[in-house]
């Protein structure tokens, strides 16, 4: 993934600058890798947990950026996949399945199916209607989870076990979980970017700008978008699995629409369709939330205007504020 291309640079028409965004991205990942060491000196577990939470949300945000940033599909129900992923994990643990691999397999299957069914219906619409219908599906899932009375109903369910990965029971808790999450984040970040540069991604991005033209060229936009929706939903489901591992608790509120809104804020603040935007956005939102709430209980009073300023004056998002990082084609 050095991205240094001699013949390739001719095609990317901003090839050099894309490479620099790759450097920024790897720097962020390296910094995240050092976090457990750095927090030994300051902040301790408290800060490490905040960073972990941000990384998990970053996975969900990166997957949402595949839809919003690359596909132009503003899904307002993406937290449903977080919730579903955490519930599949929690229920499996509750029922005595402790292997991480079978649990993740179930997460992928459930979230993939949920995405395929709701996506097949939602993608028949577009624009505001797509926003509303994904919101509706998200809320349907939220209320379905709330009504699971044998798994805690409204109150959620405390998990007494952590999943076991490769025979180790400490890989999915504490610092082990931190690094597993980081590896998954890097994988997800590379995957989504790679997808966007592929044949599939080119059609997806073209359909965002001019669907009529793309379909008269002979592409079935619905299929391409549905595949993107399933990939994004599955990745967010994995983030849900990690959420359950971190909090050792599952709650319907994970799937609530406020969380979907938060993910959209991360993606938009970070920079739509950029290599690092969703990651930067997730880190920024989580840190702003934690930092501002240390100052005042009503931290949203400050965060709101900051959001407005960003939308007004930094349209490309945080990724475009960094001088050497840019949206690639």
């Amino acid at each position, binding site marked *: 993934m050095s991205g240094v291309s001699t013949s390739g640079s001719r*095609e990317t028409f901003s090839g050099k600058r894309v490479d620099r965004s790759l450097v920024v991205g790897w720097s962020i990942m390296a910094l995240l890798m050092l976090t457990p060491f750095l927090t030994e000196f300051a902040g301790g577990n408290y800060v490490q947990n905040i960073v972990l939470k941000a990384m998990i949300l970053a996975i969900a945000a990166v997957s949402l950026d595949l839809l919003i940033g690359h596909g132009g599909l503003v899904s307002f129900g993406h937290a449903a996949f977080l919730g579903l992923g955490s519930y599949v994990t929690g229920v499996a643990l509750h029922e005595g399945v402790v292997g991480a691999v079978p649990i993740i397999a179930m997460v992928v299957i459930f979230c993939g199916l949920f995405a395929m069914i709701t996506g097949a219906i939602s993608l028949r619409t577009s624009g505001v209607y797509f926003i509303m219908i994904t919101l509706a599906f998200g809320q349907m899932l939220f209320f379905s989870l709330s009504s699971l009375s044998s798994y805690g109903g409204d109150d959620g369910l405390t998990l007494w076990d952590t999943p076991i990965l490769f025979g180790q029971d400490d890989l999915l808790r504490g610092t082990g979980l931190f690094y597993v999450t980081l590896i998954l984040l890097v994988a997800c970040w590379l995957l989504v970017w790679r997808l966007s540069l592929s*044949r599939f991604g080119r059609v997806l991005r073209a359909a965002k700008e001019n669907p009529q033209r*793309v379909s*008269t*060229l002979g592409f079935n936009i619905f299929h391409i978008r549905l595949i993107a929706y399933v990939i994004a939903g599955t990745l967010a489901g994995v983030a849900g699995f990690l959420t359950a591992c971190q909090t050792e608790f599952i709650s319907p509120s994970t799937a609530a629409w406020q969380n979907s809104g938060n993910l959209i804020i991360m993606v938009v603040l970070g920079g739509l369709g950029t290599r690092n935007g969703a990651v930067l956005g997730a880190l920024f939102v989580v840190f702003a939330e934690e930092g501002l709430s240390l100052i005042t209980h009503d931290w949203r009073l400050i965060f709101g205007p900051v959001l407005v300023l960003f939308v007004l004056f930094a349209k490309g998002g945080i990724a475009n504020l960094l001088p050497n990082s840019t949206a690639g084609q």
Partner: protein
Amino acid sequence: MSIVLAIHGLAKSFGSLRVIEQVSLELEDNTCHALIGPNGAGKSTLINLISGTLAADAGTIVLANQDLTGSPVPHRALAGLGRTFQLTSIIPTFSVLQNVTLAAQAKDGSSLRFFARVAEETRLNERARAVLDMLDLGDRQEIRAADLSHGEHRLLELAMAIVAEPKALLLDEPMAGMGRGESEALVETLVVLKQSIPMLLVEHDMDAVFKLADTISVLANGCIVASGNPDEVRADTHARAAYLGGGAE
């Protein structure tokens, strides 16, 4: 000569307004069939019916012995029906080359390739560059499509339609808004192109139409009122009444 595209009894109404009534026409191999008529005659509607962007109420569309009546838009495109739009329709943030390779990709293998970088696919790039060179856009391929001039947009539109080597090409006012020099150059290009790709041309520029067309049909109020070779149409009284002598432009 064999018939590539055959339209029979095509009809379309918007509510009680009958825009196209019983239109039949044929496009032969290696020819240009021009469709002329006053504004509002239904020319663009007809192009949209054939390409599938609008659903016809009645009639059949057959391309190279393949019945495309009722097929969805992408299916018609893959079957070999290329088109350009009256208002330029491109992917504005893509580079010129990316626009054309996107078009080439539609008929070149599966688009369900998720990992290989499409920008490095030599075959797609070579095909796209060949078409761009032919249309004199070769040195503009790295430019963002939105930054092209109007005339260049029209050429890019054409490049995207022909790179997939369609069996028949629907051209909806390709010269619209072009300068005189530009449109004369485009006519020269199309004269060469029609020898390999038969085209159905909608155009207001009569000089271009009479230079290019082997057959001309005159559409007025949704019906074909005259059809024939350019000389016949020039002499036809219906055609003159509907368009040529009417000073409709």
